[in-house]
């Protein structure tokens, strides 16, 4: 609760602290110990922004603070200045987005504690840390997942990859029921290669309540984070998470639940030559192995496709997220390797209209 009097003094002090920092003076208790040379660049005019924000000095609303940090980020060349500021402030106020806050929250003065929290988070953003790592969480479809560097942050495009798998499964079910196949409710077994934070695996488990997932990643950090997210969502009974590198380890362990219905992956698919031009947010904080697909971006894609026939049931499917240049390349590669008995069944676009998802089917003999 914001109490006039005590907190007013605290806020004043805070502003003073902030002022010192903003003017490039040695920060006294800044986390991470930013040195003067690396500190954010702000003109003295900038530093008085906070005080001039509204009529009553010392009282700041959410909107004031968002505007303030937006300016700070802009001055320091931080991309998505407005968005970053909004997400941070919303998070501290317990909301997901700024626009989901009601008008009352927008007008309520922020407590000193809240302002301090915003400052701590914003400092991280000033170091080009991705917002998802700053907040330590992010949303993927209906799930809120913990995020932790350097585990790869799920991209919004990938939400559609999950939808494609769910639709294919329901299409298969419909087909089976129309053909009057008897038997119990199917328990689709899904293998995810490169699970990262667990976004795809856990989304699939939520959308397909009968499914089981085997999730693998070559990085222990990813395996741990997926496990943590699985536990938070109470999905640990239906998922097996393995620390496993598909490029080097035997695939036998992946058959612990028998032949697989779907292989899903968002494998590293960036062309090696494009890696250097990625944003600082990515290069400084994310695991580059989760991105670099080698010279043609196909290294891991090929590994997965080579592995697929021995793992998949007949007419099982592989769903991949890829670079827009890959559909043609994959098609050609599959035709050059007919022994794999895999065909490129469909190419799906992402929400920006780019060819992004491949549906590859195993042909029954």
């Amino acid at each position, binding site marked *: 609760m914001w109490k006039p009097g005590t907190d007013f003094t605290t806020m004043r002090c805070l502003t003073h602290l902030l002022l010192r920092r903003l003017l490039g003076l040695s920060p006294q208790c800044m986390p991470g110990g930013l040195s003067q040379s690396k500190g954010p660049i702000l003109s003295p005019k900038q530093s008085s922004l906070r005080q001039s924000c509204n009529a009553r000095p010392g009282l700041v609303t959410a909107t004031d603070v968002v505007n303030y940090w937006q300016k700070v980020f802009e001055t320091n060349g931080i991309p*998505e200045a407005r*968005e*970053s500021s909004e*997400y941070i402030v919303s998070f501290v106020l317990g909301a*997901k*987005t*700024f*626009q*989901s806050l*009601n*008008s009352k929250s927008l007008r309520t003065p922020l407590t000193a504690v809240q302002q301090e929290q915003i400052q701590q988070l914003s400092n991280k953003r000033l170091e080009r840390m*991705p*917002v*998802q790592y700053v907040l330590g969480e*992010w*949303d*993927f*479809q*209906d799930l809120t997942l913990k995020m932790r560097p350097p585990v*790869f*942050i799920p*991209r*919004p*495009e990938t*939400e*559609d990859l999950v*939808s*494609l798998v769910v*639709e294919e499964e329901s299409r298969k079910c419909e087909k089976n029921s129309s053909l009057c196949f008897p038997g119990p409710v199917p328990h689709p077994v899904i293998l995810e290669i490169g699970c990262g934070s667990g976004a795809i695996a856990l989304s699939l488990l939520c959308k397909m309540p009968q499914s089981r997932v085997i999730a693998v990643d070559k990085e222990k950090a990813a395996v741990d984070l997926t496990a943590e997210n699985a536990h938070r969502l109470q999905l640990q009974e239906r998922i097996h998470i393995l620390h496993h590198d598909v490029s080097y380890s035997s695939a036998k362990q992946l058959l612990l639940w028998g032949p697989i219905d779907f292989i899903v992956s*968002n494998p*590293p*698919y*960036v062309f090696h030559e*494009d890696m250097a031009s*990625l*944003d600082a*947010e*990515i290069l400084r904080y*994310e695991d580059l192995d*989760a*991105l670099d697909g080698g010279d043609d971006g196909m290294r891991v894609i090929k590994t997965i496709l080579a592995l697929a026939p021995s793992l998949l049931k007949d007419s099982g499917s592989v769903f991949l*997220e890829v*670079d*827009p240049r890959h*559909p043609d390349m994959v*098609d050609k590669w599959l035709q050059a390797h007919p022994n794999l008995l895999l065909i*490129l*069944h*469909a*190419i*799906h*676009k*992402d*929400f*920006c*209209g*780019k*060819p*992004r*998802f491949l549906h590859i089917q195993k042909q029954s003999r």
Partner: protein
Amino acid sequence: MSGVSTKASQSDGTGFIPEKLCPRFCMNVPSLFHFTFLLREVRTPSWRPWILRKQQFSLPRVPLLQAARKKNSLNLLGLTEAELEEQFVRGDGPGGQATNKTNNCVVLKHIPSGIVVKCHQTRSVEKNRKIAREILQEKVDLFYKGEDSDIFKEKKASEKKKQEKKRRAKENLERKKHFKEMQQLDKK
């Protein structure tokens, strides 16, 4: 509903692009795009550009509208994807793994009426797309049907309920007050 803003562009017909969106927007290719709005089936247009040999390009389906609380019983005009224009603040660039943009705002326009809905309610693009369609459908229904719209009727009904509640609460308060006054008189 907080989190969404609307702009009807009847005045100039081009009042579509909000402030800082990049001019490039992504047209939906409605080929295999199914989006069932409540009671109405969406017609999928038959034309399909960009057919690459045997493969079909298709856009990801926006998840079917879940039967949301009250919406089940409402009879709203159906919207087809062909009538909609969707825009995302993604900027130019490769997208996918190569970028890590956090702006998940969806801007959805109903071309025939010019109604625009902007949704940044959640941190998920997919959810924002879905919510934008729900809101747009309500706005469009209101636009064409006016007072005949179920949305209008529902709003009126809830307003009436609210007023009724207020009136009753006021009555109760006055009754209590009166009772207390009577008690005071009795004591004397």
